[in-house]
């Protein structure tokens, strides 16, 4: 039977930050930590995801229970003296695949739909690849997870709308003006939140103008953002030429009154103006928002937008989870074919060997045969093998894809004594207990079975351990007719 995926870890759902800090692994220590847990008899593949919100080990090995125990023990030791028990979660098989897909698609994140986690998982995957601890199963699982994340982002609105005040301000400005580069942004006052919003906008290429009661602060901020500082006397003219105004003064009364802004709007000739009032108490008289072409957002409005965006993301979770389920099912179909491949290889090898032996015994009795006759005879025998195997292999494949393959595979192996034959033909080589050799990063696409015949999603080529690891039975097999299609 093929290896099984396991996941053991803790996250913001299950553990406090103090414990997550204790268990987190910096990138430069990843290799060492992976080598600690990998073991050819228990965990042949491994990968470590360590972010501020989660520490998770993904592994694959022939004995899932032992693999889980090993990872559990390792995390207990790392967490010592703080007890880890009760904070860990464990997944295996299909549940582990589902977990990896959900994590990559940001369904398990603190802020659902946040984009960073995908990059973090990709980085962890690359680190594990460098270490050589990614094999067939994890490779397939992770590459599918990245595809699932992409699909979820494109087919749902899980990542739509931002949730911080600065990024909401940027998004709204973009929705009004399109490309922000070169747009004039006036920062009035230099409160902390206003400064953050101005910096975020400056990052999108706006030209920043700062007006502040303290000129030093205005000059410093303007210099940092490649902008310019202006005196308070330029307020009216700057309001006329600005596209975005961020107001965050500590004034007790309205700074931008309705009367002032009425004149400004007139002078602007209906040009849209985005007013962001982050001050408390407010700087902009609320009635200003009723003026034509003025879009006024205060702190409450921005918070409300953040809430709407979060709520919208939550609504999309269901649709995203449905996509994950479809992909998990497709992955499981593929995984089951891993159980099938060694049996097909062995069965076909057995038939081919019998055919070759009988041919070798019969040929001398037939007297002098030319190369053409010999070739024809060889072809005829091969065709017989193909025809004889076609129906059993089709049934096996369908049984495995349908989820009832275990009994069929077992019966096939016993009927033809395939395990014994495999042992005689080529004993499985001892795998060295190092991460680099225990995994199979160099695994090549199986030459024996075309991917279409295995019903794999997206028509991707199936990867498998080299033939030697399957018992060395793939002897002289045609790359195209293993499934026994009659010619």
């Amino acid at each position, binding site marked *: 039977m093929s290896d099984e995926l396991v996941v053991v870890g803790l996250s913001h759902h299950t553990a406090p930050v103090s414990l997550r800090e204790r268990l987190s692994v910096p990138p430069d220590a990843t290799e060492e930590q992976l080598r600690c847990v990998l073991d050819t008899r228990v965990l042949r593949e491994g990968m470590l995801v360590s972010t501020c919100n989660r520490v998770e080990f993904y592994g694959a090995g022939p004995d899932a229970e032992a693999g889980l125990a090993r990872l559990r023990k390792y995390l207990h030791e790392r967490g010592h003296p703080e007890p880890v028990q009760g904070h860990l979660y464990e997944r295996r098989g299909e549940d582990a695949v589902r977990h990896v897909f959900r994590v990559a698609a940001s369904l398990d994140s603190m802020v659902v739909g946040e984009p960073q986690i995908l990059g973090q998982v990709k980085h962890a995957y690359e680190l594990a690849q460098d270490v050589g601890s990614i094999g067939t199963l994890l490779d397939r699982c992770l590459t599918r997870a990245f595809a699932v994340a992409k699909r979820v982002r494109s087919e749902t609105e899980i990542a739509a709308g931002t949730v911080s005040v600065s990024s909401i301000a940027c998004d709204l400005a*973009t929705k009004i003006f399109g490309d922000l580069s070169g747009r004039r942004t006036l920062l009035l006052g230099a409160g902390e939140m206003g400064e953050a919003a101005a910096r975020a906008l400056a990052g999108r290429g706006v030209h920043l103008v700062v007006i502040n009661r303290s000129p030093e602060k205005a000059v410093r901020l303007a210099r940092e953002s490649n902008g310019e500082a202006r005196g308070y006397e330029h307020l009216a003219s700057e309001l006329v030429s600005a596209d975005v105004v961020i107001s965050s003064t500590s004034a007790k009364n309205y700074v931008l009154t309705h009367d002032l802004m009425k004149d400004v709007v007139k002078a602007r000739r209906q*040009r*849209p103006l985005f007013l962001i009032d982050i001050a408390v108490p407010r700087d902009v008289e609320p009635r200003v928002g009723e003026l034509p072409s003025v879009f006024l957002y205060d702190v409450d409005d921005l918070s409300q937008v953040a809430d709407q965006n979060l709520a919208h993301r939550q609504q999309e979770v269901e649709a995203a989870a449905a996509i994950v389920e479809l992909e998990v099912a497709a992955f499981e179909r593929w995984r089951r074919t891993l159980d099938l491949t060694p049996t097909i290889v062995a069965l076909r090898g057995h038939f081919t060997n019998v055919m070759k032996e009988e041919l070798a015994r019969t040929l001398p009795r037939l007297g002098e045969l030319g190369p053409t006759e010999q070739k024809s005879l060889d072809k005829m025998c091969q065709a017989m093998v193909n025809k004889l195997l076609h129906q059993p292999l089709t049934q096996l494949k369908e049984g495995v894809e349908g989820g009832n393959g275990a009994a069929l595979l077992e019966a096939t192996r016993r009927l033809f004594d395939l395990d014994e034959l495999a042992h005689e033909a080529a004993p499985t080589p001892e795998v060295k207990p190092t991460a680099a050799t225990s995994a199979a990063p160099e695994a090549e696409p199986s030459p024996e079975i075309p991917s279409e015949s295995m019903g794999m999603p997206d028509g991707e080529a199936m990867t498998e351990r080299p033939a030697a690891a399957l018992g060395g039975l793939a002897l002289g097999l045609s790359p195209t007719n293993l499934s026994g299609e009659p010619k």
Partner: protein
Amino acid sequence: MLLKLAFTITALAYASASFLYGVYLVRGSERAKQWGARALWASVVLHAGLFALELDQLQGLPAGDVHQAMAVTAMATCVVFLALSRKRPIAVLGAFLTPVVLLLFLGAGVGRDVPPVPSPVRTFLLPFHIGVNMLGLVAFAVAFAASVGYVVQERQLRSKRLGGIFRRLPPLDVLDQLAFRSVLTGFPLLTIGIVTGALFASRLGAMDGATSMAAVLSAISWVLFAGVLLLRVAAGWTGRRAAIGTILGFVSAVTVLLGYLLRGSVIS
């Protein structure tokens, strides 16, 4: 019989595209967007096939009467929109544009038994007159969709209800620029169309009530679009008022066409 069947299938294709773009606007389904574009391309191909079937009935250009002119306008609007949406994030505007296209197409199929074109206007200028009017209408249709998008988007920004429709609609500036450029393209064509139309009217002599009404509506469209352009260029107007002016101008221009259809007359 075959023509009727082809017309029905094409109408269904336009209706499907319209429905799918509507679903994309409201629900945000990327699949609906992709299939909407495919359905619109299919509609264009089917429509071209319909033209091929009608070839023997055409009088030279496929714009011999107001019905054919409307049908060509519907098809050309789709082609222009699909081409524009390849480079700009304006696919969602299909939700506003395709119902208009469907209306034009269905209108083109109403009352096909039109009286022959009167001989005084059957000159080389006729296809030119119809051609410029058609192209002008295509430009105004795009401007109309962009302006409706602008009004909806602006309303959402003001009401601070920033749901899915808000996210899918393009930025106000993009919509404003698209509407402006489209009106700028359509206006000279409309002007030429009105001038040549006046020429034909003078040849036909006294106008009946419906023709007079069409002339008045054409003049209103022209004044509205001229006002929008003048205020934009001279007074720097952008935004909601310009968008509403554009919408009214287009509605007025389409009313002219529908007016002709209802009275069963020829050419605009």
